[in-house]
């Protein structure tokens, strides 16, 4: 098989790691191989968690390859750091990162196929064209299929610097293409990590401390060990692992564990967190993230000052497939199988933990039943590997939903205080934001709009270190900060007597002509989505309809939203959300709409309903009966639009989420006169019981 590496021009054999044999397939490069019957197999390297990279990546390859999409078969690639770069899923970065190399892969193979045809016909390759898996020599009318050409083409030297298509010639990219995994999903095929079974494997569940800030003092596992089907109970670190023959037997035995815990750090409650926030808001030693101009003077001479505080709770990621991983540690190497967003880092961590060289460790990436950032961490991979090495057997560790919700890595709780100083003309001349978080790192995004558009600006951050573990949660920090910023700007616009959209556009105009410090967002792209959202939603043209506006830039993309709220029996009902997204070139129109709708439902649901509260260091919520997620009857209508500017794609997994809370809150204000400041909104007065 012939292939080539991105890192040097020399041909090298691609390592195609799949269980399904490529009988008669000619390998072209890490991404694709072509069989003599014309079947094109494209490997999708990045973990698939519902962002549908498994369809969009192959679409990009197939486009430049000029392939007949109906002949394309997609397979998930295993971890292979020699064949693929950045094999991870996070930061809405996969498509932007791989855009050029995927196109090059397809174009290179297409070039080789055309060269093979031209050589076969003894004609100049310039007289040939390729389309839908067929090469044609127009002058003679000769044609050859990719299947017929593959064997010869694969032996040719790999060309460098192939020409890529103009986007006006795209036939696949930009279309609505069905998810390649639909058939497997709707027929219940074993594609998820939890579905992985291996003859002879054991099952395990792990009891971890319920309270953050505690550690194991003693373990009495006698009763658990005596239960039917139980093979062993193993204690390692703060874990008590029950190992047995089936998931149910293990989960029953686990309930009989008698574990005593003792204090090992701060044991906190939500009341403690609120006190911590209040204290940090008054701190005289914040970390200064950005300072422009002279806020002290701006505020002391202001005509009007607007001030508001916002707060969010901890959140669980709660992907519907709970954490799980399979590990088999053998004397000659380690086999890892399961759902992870970071397979390379997970493997390195296992290698380090067990002192086994990485080239002796394989990792097969299964489909992920949701990620949302939780599976960026490899804690549950290490658990499985360590346990397997201790019991010297293959084992699948399964987390229950309770384990998942009580188990940490949360979206951190944060409180923000925003202040704005307005001059007598209603211009915002001063802006302050202090974010105080719990294990949130820097909970501000100091270069976000309106930074650069306000002459006197101060952004500060403070962080409280807690035993409660936190992690990246879809659109980290901006998933709540977006709401707080956009709700605050709405309030400032109101105080200034200005239309909220006009208020944004004036600030952007100032950032363009007279910036105050660095402007780290693209003013044109932001203006475009704002104007388009105003147009599509009928902003200002719908008397009697309550509309709220919000715009956000995150992960390289821009999304503006307008939310429509109506009153029903005196209570606000979220009827519709318009979303305009600029993510550059849209790859799969169907998938892109999914990411926008899904991001909005995700943002809305958590803004409205979800929270974790703490008592004695443990979450009071444990499962979906008391940790509420949005359901079908609670969704508004959503209308999506995409800006067609043809720039290289800039990612869409996260950007539609941050603006959602602000658009909703601002519309609710219009309808009720009440500002929403804390999430979940269902706990705010406006949604509580009313006659």
């Amino acid at each position, binding site marked *: 098989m012939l292939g080539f590496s991105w890192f040097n021009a020399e041909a090298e054999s691609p390592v195609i790691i799949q269980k399904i044999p490529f009988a008669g397939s000619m390998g072209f490069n890490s991404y694709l191989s072509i069989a003599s019957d014309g079947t094109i197999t494209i490997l999708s390297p990045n973990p698939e968690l519902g962002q549908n990279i498994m369809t969009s990546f192959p679409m990009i390859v197939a486009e430049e390859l000029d392939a007949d999409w109906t002949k394309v078969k997609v397979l998930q690639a295993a971890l292979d750091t020699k064949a693929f770069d950045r094999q991870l899923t996070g930061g809405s970065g996969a498509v932007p990162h791989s855009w050029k190399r995927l196109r090059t892969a397809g174009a290179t193979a297409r070039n080789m196929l055309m060269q093979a045809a031209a050589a076969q016909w003894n004609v100049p390759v310039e007289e040939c064209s390729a389309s839908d898996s067929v090469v044609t020599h127009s002058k003679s009318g000769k044609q050859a299929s990719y299947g017929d050409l593959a064997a010869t083409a694969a032996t040719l030297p790999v060309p460098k610097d192939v020409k890529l298509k103009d986007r006006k010639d795209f036939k696949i990219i930009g279309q609505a293409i069905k998810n390649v995994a639909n058939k497997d999903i709707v*027929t219940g095929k074993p594609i998820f990590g939890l579905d992985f079974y291996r003859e002879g494997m054991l099952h395990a569940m792990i009891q971890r401390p319920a309270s953050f800030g505690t550690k194991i003092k003693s373990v009495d596992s006698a009763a658990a060990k005596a239960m039917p089907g139980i093979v062993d109970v193993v204690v390692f670190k703060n874990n008590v692992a029950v190992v047995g023959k089936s*998931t149910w037997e293990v989960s029953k035995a686990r309930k009989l564990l008698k574990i005593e815990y003792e204090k090992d750090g701060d044991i906190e409650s939500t009341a403690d967190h609120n006190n911590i926030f209040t204290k940090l808001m008054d701190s005289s030693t914040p970390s200064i993230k950005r300072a422009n101009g002279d806020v002290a003077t701006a505020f002391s001479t202001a005509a009007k000052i607007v001030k508001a505080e916002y707060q969010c709770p901890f959140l669980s990621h709660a992907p519907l497939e709970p954490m799980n991983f399979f590990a088999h540690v053998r004397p000659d190497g380690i086999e890892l199988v399961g759902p992870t967003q970071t397979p390379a880092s997970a493997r390195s961590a296992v290698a380090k933990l067990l002192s086994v060289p990485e080239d002796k460790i394989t990792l097969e990436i299964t489909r992920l039943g949701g990620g949302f950032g939780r599976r960026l961490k490899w804690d549950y991979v290490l658990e499985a590997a360590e346990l397997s090495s201790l019991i010297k057997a293959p084992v699948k560790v399964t987390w229950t939903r309770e384990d998942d919700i009580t188990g940490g890595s949360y979206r951190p709780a944060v409180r923000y205080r925003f202040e704005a100083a307005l001059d007598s003309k209603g211009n915002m001349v001063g802006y302050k934001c202090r974010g105080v978080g719990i294990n949130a790192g820097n909970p501000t995004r100091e270069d976000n709009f309106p930074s650069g558009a306000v002459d006197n600006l101060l952004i500060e951050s403070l962080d409280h270190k807690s035993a409660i573990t936190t992690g990246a949660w879809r659109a980290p920090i901006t998933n709540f900060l977006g709401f707080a910023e956009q709700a605050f700007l709405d309030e400032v616009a109101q105080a200034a007597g200005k239309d909220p959209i006009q208020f944004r556009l004036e600030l952007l105009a100032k950032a363009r002509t007279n910036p105050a410090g660095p402007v780290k967002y693209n003013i044109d792209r932001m203006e475009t989505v704002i104007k388009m959202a105003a147009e599509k939603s009928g902003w200002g043209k719908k008397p009697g309809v309550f509309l709220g506006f919000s715009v956000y830039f995150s992960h390289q993309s821009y999304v503006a939203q307008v939310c429509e709220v109506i009153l029903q029996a005196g209570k606000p009902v979220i009827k519709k959300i318009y979303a305009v997204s600029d993510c550059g070139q849209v790859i799969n129109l169907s998938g892109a709409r999914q990411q926008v709708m899904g991001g909005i439902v995700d943002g809305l649901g958590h803004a409205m309903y979800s929270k974790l509260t703490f008592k004695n260091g443990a979450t009071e919520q444990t499962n979906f009966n008391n940790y509420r997620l949005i*359901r*079908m009857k609670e969704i508004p209508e*959503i209308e999506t639009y995409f800006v067609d500017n043809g720039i290289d794609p800039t990612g869409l997994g996260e950007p539609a989420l941050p603006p959602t809370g602000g658009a909703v809150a601002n519309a609710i204000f219009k309808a009720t006169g009440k500002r929403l400041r804390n999430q979940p909104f269902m706990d705010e007065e406006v949604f509580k019981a009313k006659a």
Partner: protein
Amino acid sequence: MPVYTLQINGKEYKADVAADTPLLWVLRDSLGLVGTKFGCGIAQCGACTVHLNGNAVKSCVLPVASVKTAAITTIEGLSTLGDHPLQNAWNEVDVPQCGYCQAGQIMTAAALLKKKPHPSEAEIDNAMHGNICRCGAYHRIREAVKLASTKI
């Protein structure tokens, strides 16, 4: 342990398990039928939905001992060729994101359409209320149920 004989997807299966084993875990761990998913274990998310004599039930809280001779249908048995109108509609509308909840969604919808071949949007929303889609693909799930109802 007692051996349970179960009628699943028109075939007979035997499982040597404890009486209180939820049908979900019999399907997944004992019988290799992993289309039915584990999401919460307390009948809150719907990922484990199967049919018991045509009714949608949450298999995570259904002890195997209570199944007896009832006819169980799982996602694997909804159709022989994967072409039940709902399965077709799911592809036509391009419903799934991660896909983990979708077998449960389809099974709930299939039971609904058996009883009510042309449900209103409100009836769909009510029937599907017990099925969580964490990815938020609800709009398309609802649309696909409506589409399937026009083909039944």
